[in-house]
């Protein structure tokens, strides 16, 4: 579904992603791991079109994303729940969800989809009319994921959903991500929390200072002693 080949991304003169290649197949949950500053968020932002690679290609469902404007990328079926949630604090929860559905032409099933999001995250329904800024960190993360889901994406990019959340919340979020996988949503998950991510992922890639250092089945990587030492606390 998604095939990234040899992308090189720069911030001004700084070479942030170096010949990065990876792919995500339909129905998979692929994890992208790495330490702070490795380039994980940059990768997702490049996929969404917020940054352009200097060289390399990104093929998504027969479209070349490097030549597609960011707002079109969303309508092709790629949704991004960004780092730090970035929900619209001044808009209500409902309005946030509606914005997620911005690209949808047919608004007939809109209410059903909203109800489904609420079933995943009941607390959102309770606070429907409140400004999103009033939510806690965990609730905002739920909203961010829900918002991304509203566009009925083929591929969902999740950027560090567990960042800054209490352990209970983290568990809940990963439960939801698993539910999404069970609902046949293809996911590319960026996480610093390598352990949780590898538990639920099919395959994973490890980014280190802009290079893909390792890749493989999640089960293999969990057992890998290097990974254990670097990311899983020995």
């Amino acid at each position: 579904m998604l095939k990234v080949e040899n992308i090189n991304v720069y911030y001004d003169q700084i070479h942030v992603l170096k010949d990065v290649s990876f792919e995500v197949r339909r129905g998979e949950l692929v994890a992208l791991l790495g330490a702070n500053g490795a380039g994980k968020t940059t990768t997702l932002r490049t996929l969404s079109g917020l940054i352009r690679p200097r060289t390399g290609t990104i093929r998504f469902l027969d479209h070349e994303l490097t030549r597609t404007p960011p707002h079109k990328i969303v309508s092709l079926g790629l949704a991004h729940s960004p780092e730090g949630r970035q929900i619209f604090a001044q808009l209500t929860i409902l309005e946030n969800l509606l914005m997620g559905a911005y690209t949808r032409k047919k608004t007939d099933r809109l209410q059903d989809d909203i109800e489904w999001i609420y079933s995943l995250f009941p607390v959102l329904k309770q606070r429907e009319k409140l400004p999103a800024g009033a939510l806690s960190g965990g609730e905002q993360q739920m909203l961010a994921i829900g918002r991304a889901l509203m566009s009925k994406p083929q591929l969902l990019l999740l950027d560090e959903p567990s960042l800054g959340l209490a352990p209970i919340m983290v568990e809940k979020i990963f439960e939801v991500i698993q539910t999404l996988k069970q609902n046949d949503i293809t996911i590319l998950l960026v996480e610093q929390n390598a352990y949780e991510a590898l538990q639920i992922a099919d395959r994973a890639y490890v980014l280190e200072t802009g290079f893909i250092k390792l890749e493989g089945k999640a089960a293999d990587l969990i057992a890998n002693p290097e990974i254990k030492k670097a990311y899983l606390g020995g």
Partner: protein
Amino acid sequence: MTYSAEYWIQQFFNGLGLGSIYALTAIGYTLVYGILRLINFAHGDLLMISAYTVASLVGFALLPYPVAVAAALVFVALIGLTIERLAYRPLRGKPEETTLVTSLAVSILIQNLALMILSPQPRAFSLPAFFNATTQIGNVTFPLINIIIILITVVLLFALTLMIKKTKIGIAMRASAENLQAATLMGINLNSVVRTAFIVGSMLAAVAGILMAGRYGRIEPFMGFVPGLKAFVAAVIGGIGSIYGAAIGGLILGFGEILFVAMLPPDLSAFKDIFVFLALILMLLIKPTGLFGRPADRRV
């Protein structure tokens, strides 16, 4: 110096009328700044373009007022869009100073184009006779024009509020003003949102221009400059990015100006414009985000 109650009531409506004109214009600034972080200095000149369009269509083409007004609204919206497309769009993402200088240049360009095409002499401008009528309530005489201005402004504000709360593009505008990148991730096309902001803002300014011309009875090529600046100050006082803020800021400024003139001896009234800028500097010192503004964000 004491005035009768009648005088103060009249000045109250005077202030409301002037404030409404500033409010309508201020909204245009805030809509654009909210999304693009750009002060469109040329916005004030739209007041002038609108007034002259109506004056020409009525005076030379002999069109009826409603048609002329509608044409002026469309024309000004087109001008706004053209400015956006030619001067501001190529500079998206460029540093602030660049857009600032361009914005100034566009303003000077329009003013001098007007100077070239039109006579620098002020021209008389009048709305249909019934606008200039006065009405009597009790023993207080009100010029009808102020009431009309207030009514039109209220209706437009109401319509605008509906738009930004209920329509998809309206919510998208609010989202974009808050977080441009996140909005893009929703699939919102920035260009559409910006165009909408310019269209709405320009049309409101067009209305304000016509009302202003009717209120003062004359038009001249530089008539938009100072009111435009004042409207910008109003937007800042209200909190740039907040539509309510812009409206309230406009009212405050309108009232303040009228009060200033009413309370001070006549030979000092020419200094009323100074008060506007002092108010700006004061507000920026005390609460730079304005009365209703959001905490300042440094755009990522």
